[in-house]
């Protein structure tokens, strides 16, 4: 009889350690593991999708068996494996990487699978498909253990292991970041004729027109791989469009050429946004970069210390990579919620966070919007989004539609 174990509880309750202990003590010597972000979802040993699948594929005992380059039988109806054949693993979106990892597992001989919050990156359709795949009645002959903040126990057919918080070291309340902010009217962002495609990929956006008003929260919604993160990267200047124009207020805005001056970004993987090893380093670089555009008071050290403390960091000298991932994710909100720039852009901000923190973050974002800031956020978490008054921008088939 195979086992299904859901490890639940708040952040910092030792869920990841409990997951590892479960694997070692009760499951098997070797388990397939899908961690929260790419370095723990994919092997990192391959440079093509075919090789990633090939690496994990179950092999016959004889050494002479030459494995074909086939991409394998698809596990999820929504996951078109052949469409990924020309992509590189590291260029996949977070959700796509999780789908690839699940696909690789399905072709492997591992007797157990462990997932540490990774399913939170999947859109509802893929998430349902994954949970359906784990359903014992569907014949998956492997043990599965999972941590997921969006699955309240009890889950039918799963054994729940409830954990309670064992530390208050990282307690946070993001609402405190916006409590003292003064009202500010963010300039509108207008996009006209935006077209973009990756060099070896499909066209992501085709002649997109969009108007984003300050004082409004927008949720970018769409399936995994639709281009949500790509749009955020275009807005902050990490990518340059193939065609099209942006205006900020009534002025042309080309962040890819002149630099980002208006948008505070919190990335999906918090480690994609640090520009220093400590929080002090990171903020010092932002201070230097935005010295002309931002009120000096915003970067005053006492204020930054207060904001960091509200997110669970008791010193600006904290070494970011020594913190737990969930704590780093919380600190990634500091910059957008600090009010330094008129637009806050958050990519999957609630990822890996427990319910209480998600509620507080939603309230903070709602407050930021009420003060006149512009907010653009990406999430697959409908409950989280429902707590923020927002408008939906649907991405798909190269278009962005305001609903």
């Amino acid at each position, binding site marked *: 009889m195979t086992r299904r174990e859901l490890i639940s509880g708040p952040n910092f309750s030792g869920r990841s350690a409990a997951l590892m202990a479960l*694997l070692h003590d009760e499951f098997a010597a070797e388990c397939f593991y899908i961690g929260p972000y790419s370095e*723990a979802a994919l092997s990192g*040993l391959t*440079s*093509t999708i075919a090789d990633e699948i090939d690496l994990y594929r179950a092999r016959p005992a004889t050494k002479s068996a030459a494995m074909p380059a086939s991409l394998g039988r698809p596990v999820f109806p929504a996951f078109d494996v052949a469409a990924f054949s020309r992509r590189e693993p590291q260029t996949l979106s977070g959700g796509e990487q999780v789908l690839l990892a699940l696909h690789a597992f399905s072709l492997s001989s591992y007797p157990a699978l462990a997932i540490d919050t990774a399913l939170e990156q999947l859109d509802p359709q893929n998430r349902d498909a994954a949970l359906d795949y784990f359903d014992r009645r569907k014949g998956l002959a492997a043990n599965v253990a999972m941590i997921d903040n969006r699955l309240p126990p009890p889950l039918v057919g799963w054994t729940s292991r409830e954990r309670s918080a064992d530390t208050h070291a990282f307690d946070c309340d993001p609402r405190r970041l916006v409590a003292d902010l003064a009202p500010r009217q963010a300039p509108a962002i207008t996009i006209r004729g935006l077209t973009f495609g990756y060099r070896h990929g499909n066209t992501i956006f085709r002649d997109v027109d969009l108007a984003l008003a300050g004082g409004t929260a927008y949720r970018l919604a769409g399936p995994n791989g639709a281009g949500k993160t790509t749009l955020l990267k275009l807005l902050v200047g990490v990518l340059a469009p193939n065609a099209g124009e942006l205006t900020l207020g009534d002025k042309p805005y080309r962040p890819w050429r002149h630099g980002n001056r208006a948008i505070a970004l919190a990335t999906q993987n918090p*480690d994609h*946004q640090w520009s220093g090893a400590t929080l002090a380093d990171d903020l010092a670089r932002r201070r230097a970069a935005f010295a002309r555009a931002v009120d000096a008071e915003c970067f005053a050290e006492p204020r930054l210390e207060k904001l960091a403390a509200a997110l669970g960091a008791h010193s600006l000298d904290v070494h970011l990579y020594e913190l737990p991932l969930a704590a780093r994710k919380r600190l990634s909100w500091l910059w957008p919620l600090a009010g330094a720039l008129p637009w806050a852009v958050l990519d999957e901000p609630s990822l890996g966070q427990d319910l209480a923190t998600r509620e507080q973050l939603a309230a903070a974002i709602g407050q930021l919007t009420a003060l006149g800031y512009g907010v653009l956020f990406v999430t697959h978490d409908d409950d989280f989004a429902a707590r923020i008054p927002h408008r939906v921008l649907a991405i798909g088939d190269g278009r962005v539609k305001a609903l």
Partner: protein
Amino acid sequence: MTPNGGFAVGLILIALSVVEPGPRGAAVLVALALAFAIIEVRAASLLAARRAALVVLPLALFMGLVWVGIVGEAPYQIAADAVGTRAAALVYVAKLSGRLFFIVTVIQLVFLRFADLTPLQLIRALALPVAVKRMLAITLSLIETLRHAIDRAHIALIASGTLTRAPSLRNALHSWRLIQAVWLSAVTIMLGRMRDKWPVENTMARLDAALAHVPARVFAGDDRIWLPITLGAAAVTLLADLVGKP
């Protein structure tokens, strides 16, 4: 042709070019490389030549500037304490650049010959001990990790207003921060994998299993044509080099 045969032919050609063949020997080598390019690699050979030119041209220009423009004589003339000339320096730079161009082109040709194989398939097909294959796979993966780290650092530094995507004075001033961020990212990416993913999965054992396939015959198919021709050319080149020497 097998990857073993391709790499053997490439290694022999490179080794012969390094022993400084005379004009006749060099002509044999170039003819053989051209034949390999036309028959085995076809149109993609132009890509190989273009890439080699991109690598070697800046180096050739720099060497020309130093030896012809500034020093004004060839290194062997300096060593022999002989009267140097710019013409001799030019010949020296041309020979050296030509040899480098040849080596880079041959390496490109061999890899392009097997461009239809994925990196894992290519390494698996080599008749090498698994430990060596593992080292090759990990070395290649480090390149991917660095690319990933560069992407990460770019996102962080552009979004934080430190750098711009387009060339700028700001980029020149803060390029050291990019280097710092890339290494920090690369280290943390590696640590992330080695802490959780690899130990839980025993991923290295999977890699060994994926690389363990040993071809039934090390050389097969067109290898049996190309290897004798290449070895024959090697003999001719070495003999041609010896003829006329005291």
